[in-house]
């Protein structure tokens, strides 16, 4: 019954597509679904205006809760039902590869545009050689540090995790001796959720321990460097980081930091503007640096790639127009407008030199370096199984951090679990 139903719906879609292609170019209404974050909706209306004026089409916006899990579930359901109500989807960096089957391959359409963006961003949106989404803006975390406290205690900005641990411990002890009882050395995101995958991927990668699943699909997580990375992080809990860090997401970490109760914080760029707010206890007292690196062979600074992209639905009845809109939204000019309007980080390297943008976003130059070390989560190789892989990874890490298993043990189990999920192939 419902199979027939959906087939007839799709049939209707094909019919509509033929009418569109047969008819002369007329003004169409394109449906664009977007998470309602901040002034994203208003800013989107503003950015898309030139395109609407040029083509005569209109874009109608469908808003989604800012909670990404609700948003993703809704996308899945819409795409599963093959709905033609939505033409373009704004997707999180890890989504498009998982939903690749439902999206149009943009390789051909974007062959001139793609090389202008950061390579790692394009790589993160390529699944099986198919470019499934185009980047709109990006996101990458950095190390926030308290300039005043480092100066007071005569410390340098740490470049390795070992230095960070030592510095954080020393300052924490000294400040507590002076009565600042609530001060902690380092806060980050330790809750069992996607954010922990990001944090832990950075530790592992910075120790030269690979990126969980390599781009070619090999499971690389069970290695001594990864074990060393997790052991290091587990030692923070209860020493330089509060026990409660195991339930922290971004906002909890920012809360501790912004009330002046942390020396270091790992967080995304959004915290920068907020920490500079007038009522912030750390206003003017902090700066950012790339995240520290680990020890051993292949050690480097690593920052997990975030950000949002736009994908074109396969079930759209106005695909050509939708692709045109996607190309417009991802173009360097539009990205520049977006950065000016919303302070979002562009994915085009040259925009990081743009003086007007730097005036608008003083932290921009600092983040260029961060991006050069950005590492994508393994959603491209693992495709539809990414969420399961990520959940297994963060639970293994969470178990290690909370002391329920040793790092070596949980990574060994994780490897077996991932092999199981992989089965015959991703």
């Amino acid at each position, binding site marked *: 019954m419902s199979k027939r139903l959906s087939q007839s719906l799709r049939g209707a879609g094909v019919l509509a597509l033929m009418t569109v292609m047969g008819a002369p170019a007329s003004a169409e209404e394109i449906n664009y679904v977007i998470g309602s974050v901040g002034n994203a909706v208003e800013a989107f209306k503003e950015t898309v205006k030139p395109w609407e004026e040029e083509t005569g089409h209109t874009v109608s916006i469908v808003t989604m809760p800012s909670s990404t899990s609700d948003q993703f579930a809704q996308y899945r359901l819409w795409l599963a039902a093959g709905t033609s109500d939505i033409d373009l989807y704004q997707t999180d960096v890890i989504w498009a590869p998982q939903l690749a089957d439902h999206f149009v391959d943009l390789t051909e359409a974007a062959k001139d545009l793609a090389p202008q963006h950061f390579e790692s961003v394009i790589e993160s949106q390529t699944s099986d050689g198919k470019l499934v989404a185009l980047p709109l803006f990006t996101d990458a975390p950095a190390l926030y540090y308290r300039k005043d406290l480092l100066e007071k205690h005569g410390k340098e900005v740490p470049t390795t995790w070992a230095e960070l641990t030592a510095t954080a411990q020393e300052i924490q002890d000294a400040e507590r001796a002076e009565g600042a009882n609530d001060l902690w050395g380092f806060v980050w995101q330790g809750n069992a959720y996607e954010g922990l995958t990001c944090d832990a991927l950075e530790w592992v990668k910075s120790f030269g321990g690979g990126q969980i699943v390599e781009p070619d699909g090999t499971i690389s997580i069970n290695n001594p460097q990864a074990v060393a990375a997790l052991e290091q992080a587990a030692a923070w809990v209860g020493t330089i980081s509060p026990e409660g860090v195991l339930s922290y997401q971004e906002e909890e970490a920012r809360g501790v930091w912004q009330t002046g109760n942390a020396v270091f914080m790992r967080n995304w760029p959004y915290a920068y503007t907020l920490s500079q707010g007038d009522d912030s206890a750390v206003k003017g007292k902090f700066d950012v640096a790339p995240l520290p690196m680990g020890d051993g062979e292949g050690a480097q600074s690593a920052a997990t790639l975030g950000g949002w992209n736009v994908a074109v639905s396969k079930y759209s009845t106005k695909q050509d127009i939708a692709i045109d809109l996607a190309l417009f939204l991802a173009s360097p000019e539009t990205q520049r407008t977006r950065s000016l309007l919303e302070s979002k980080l562009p994915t085009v390297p040259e925009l990081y030199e743009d003086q007007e943008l730097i005036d608008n976003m003083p932290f921009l130059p600092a983040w260029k370096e961060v991006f050069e070390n950005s590492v994508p989560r393994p959603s491209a190789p693992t495709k*539809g*199984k990414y969420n399961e892989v990520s959940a297994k990874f963060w639970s293994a890490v969470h178990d290690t951090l909370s002391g329920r298993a040793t790092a070596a043990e949980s990574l060994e189990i994780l490897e077996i679990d991932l092999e199981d999920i992989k089965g015959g192939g991703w």
Partner: protein
Amino acid sequence: MPDINPNTAPALATPAEPHKGSPSLQRQRQRAAFWFLAPMLIALFCVAAWPLMRTIYFSLTDATLSNLYDAKFIGFQNYLQVRELSSGRTIYRGTLVDPDWWNAVWNTVRFSVVSVAFETVFGLIVALVLNAEFKGRGFVRAAILIPWAIPTIVSAKMWGWMLNDQFGILNDILLNLGLISQRIAWTASTETAMKAVLIVDIWKTTPFMALLILAGLQMVPRDMYEAAKIDGIHPVKVFFKVTLPLIRPALMVAVIFRMLDALRIFDLVYVLTPNSSATKTMSVISRENMIDFDKFAYGAAQSTLLFGIIAVFVAAYIWIGKVDLSGEKSR
């Protein structure tokens, strides 16, 4: 009904239906009953039966959300499948041998029993208080409904904030009162995560219980209490001998529906401690598989099992609690 012992109360001992009517009257009543039931049954069939059957069907296929309509029928493999490895060893796969699933079952059952027990006791206390006459009763009645009235997604987040280890008010209060010596990370640690969920759930749903029990109490004729008072019977004895038996039907129904809700608990856990294995319930794990992990059929199988487990619980409850379904006995 001046007799205060309900078991011998004549009015309650007779069947609920008038039995004086002629056979044709009886037939007329049955015809009317059919027409009264039909709209409800049609409505329920549309919104419930069809989606339920779809889900059960999906649980027997290899459907994923990316590929919902071209799914193959694979029998009970999502529940249990036996595979022989090339080495000759047999392995078992499927929900029924999935430790995560059984962990979720255990979490859910534990959660439901504890929360419903507390909610029933607290609900009774609150209902008894509200049933008494005192100044400001209207205000109190509105006040106790507040927890139930706040959308779960909001109250769960609100509690998450209040339970925060660094800037949560609960830790601050407990510290100031000297009840704890250091801040507790309520939702982070595996020992306290379940307690946190229980606290919030009991806070949130006690009003539901209280209100249903209160409605039951309101239907108990006042003169029963007066009769008991004149006879000088101790209030506690009156409660157990008179009030409780009389509100028992209402109480039983309230408990059934709370139990059903508790066994399916989803949003509170999903918002408060989304990925903690100490609190992951059946609904949460089923959603995780259906949506997040793109194993729709596997999640559908878990939903079907959840349905089965709840059915067993309800059947046991009705049997043990001697809930009179048809209303024909014990009256």
